[in-house]
């Protein structure tokens, strides 16, 4: 598991003509998708485009109306859920731990698919949990109740649980919800290292486009239940796409600290040239010297 996987092999997770919805409402409509192995893929799209629904279907938390999700070539609905849980882990959005549950106990829950009622804490389990705690930097917090941690620490504890589960594929539904920017970056750094150094395939949903660009090898752009673009961030992100899919007028510039694009939203206020907005630097000098 600790082997570095840099080669991209055949997709292990895929969707075939996937249609998902709630009641009569169709959210994801006839979607075909292949998740590349060994890289970080992020699904982005405007609110209500079906990105969380897609992720939950990939993690078999939602049953498709038609079509199927394939894990290693087999329909996920035909596999035993415990077997799936040894290959595919999914962290729901903003999970809540029972009050008083310690970090060590939470992370140990990740071993559930490897346990039975007589084998509840094998030496393997203990080793994997110890490792997961250390790798995510929460060993020192092991005895603290999860509900008393800061948002960033708490999310690291949950990711530690997902890591202890020992799955090759990891689905994260908005892992940075409720986190400030510093903690978001900290959590995404951790996710990136799990992929880079542990060879995990990561699929996540993110709201923040610039963070998605920075931390993803591939982006999947969804709009109204369908995939409208996919590829590397540089291939996918353009001013036209942002306007068409998100209805956002923006500049796409070179990120001063990385080789990826950076989105600068325009809006209507506080922008050079807008009514009541600031005056461009050159003009300001002119006015001041008059």
């Amino acid at each position, binding site marked *: 598991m*600790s082997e570095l996987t840099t080669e991209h092999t055949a997709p292990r997770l895929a969707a075939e003509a996937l249609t998902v919805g709630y009641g009569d409402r169709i959210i994801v409509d006839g979607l075909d998708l292949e998740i590349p192995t060994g890289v970080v893929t992020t699904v982005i799209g405007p609110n209500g485009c079906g990105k969380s629904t897609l992720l*939950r279907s990939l*993690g*078999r*938390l939602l049953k498709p109306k038609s079509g199927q999700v394939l894990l290693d070539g087999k329909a996920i609905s035909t596999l035993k*859920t*415990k*077997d*799936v*849980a*040894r290959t595919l*882990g*999914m*962290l*729901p959005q903003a*999970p*809540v*731990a*029972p*009050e*008083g*549950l*310690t970090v*060590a*106990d*939470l992370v*140990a*829950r*990740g071993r*559930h*698919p490897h*346990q*039975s*009622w*007589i*084998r*509840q*804490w*094998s*030496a393997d*389990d*203990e*080793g994997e*949990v*110890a*490792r997961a*705690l*250390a*790798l995510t930097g929460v*060993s020192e917090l*092991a*005895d603290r109740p999860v509900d008393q941690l800061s948002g960033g620490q708490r999310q690291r504890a949950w990711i530690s649980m997902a890591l202890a*589960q020992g799955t090759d594929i990891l689905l994260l539904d908005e892992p940075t919800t409720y986190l400030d920017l510093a903690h978001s970056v900290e959590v995404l750094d951790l996710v990136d*290292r*799990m992929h880079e*150094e*542990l060879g995990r395939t990561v699929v996540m949903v993110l709201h923040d486009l610039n963070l998605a660009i920075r931390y993803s090898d591939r982006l999947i752009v969804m709009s109204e239940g369908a995939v409208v673009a996919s590829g590397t961030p540089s291939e996918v992100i353009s001013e036209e796409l942002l306007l068409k899919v998100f209805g956002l007028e923006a500049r796409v510039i070179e990120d001063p600290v990385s080789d990826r694009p950076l989105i600068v939203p325009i809006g209507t206020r506080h922008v050079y040239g807008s009514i009541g907005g600031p005056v461009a630097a050159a003009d300001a000098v002119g006015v001041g010297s008059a």
Partner: protein
Amino acid sequence: MSLIDDKVELPTTVPSRPGFRVGPVSLVRRTTMVAITAGLLLAAFLLLCINIGRGDFAISVPTVAEILFGGGTKVERFIVMDLRLPRALTALLTGLALGISGAITQSILRNPLASPDLLGITAGASAAAVALIVLAGGGSFVGLLAVLGIPIAALIGGIATAVIIYALAWRGGVQGYRVVLIGIGFNAMLIAAIQWMLISADINDVARAQVWLNGSLNGSDWAQVWPVAIGVAVVGTIALISSFTLGALRLGDDNARSLGVRLQAGQATLLLAAVALASIATAAVGPIGFVALCAPQLALRLLRTPGPPILASGLVGAVLVVGSDVIARTILPVELPVGIVTSALGGPFLLYLLVRNNRKVSV
């Protein structure tokens, strides 16, 4: 910074979760929890002995213990084994069943109010039993029907109520608060139905129904103990084994499913076991209020666990019912049905849970 640094040894043990491993069996060694659970077992046994010793012919606790393990005179053995043990054992088993039942419902529905007596399951069992007492009438109500009729009716009533509540709460899955709200509604309806039956029935039947409704251990004999003992042993074992998935279930439906729990099957097995246990207890002695609600909350505070511990909740339940029976029989001037004592103790405890604000009630 790197996740994998060859120079730094990654830890292989989790100090706060030491292992207890024998052959294929492996558990977390939790010394304090085992000690407290053993203490509860001892407390339950002591109360059982005290309960047996009380009465017109008083027997000391050490003598009771001696007789239970095979000693004593012939007269003492008759009094203890044939006259008093069935009643005390029924109390113990009822408490055990109610405690386990409450721990499961509170854990699965993630609501400390979700106990079988507040959800209407006990009321369903009672309504069926009262209906049988009232409709069958005093004269025709003898023999086998008298021994088995009420327990079977109560068992069916309890399980049927649970199934209806579950079906009504179902919306592509079951949410705890919906079950609680629907259960409370059902509870009120069933209590109204019981009142209506009591008002419209023959006065002699009403008196008998009333004694049963207060949760009475009077008249327990071995013929009643065996079915309860077997029922509690079988269903209790199933519950304890299935409760392995509770750790994952307590993290919420999505997490539980991601961790490979067969959500519907796992929940249904546990809930059915809980309903069966509550119904068996009610069938044996009538509704005993608040034990299923209090025992798990007391147990989780004693053991300091994040959710109600199943076995310890059962033992606390046993201590509560046997202890209440001791109070009902000795401390008070008149011998009261045990259900009145548990309700008198449980009501204030419920209020305490609701007004307590430094720590929210846990499930």
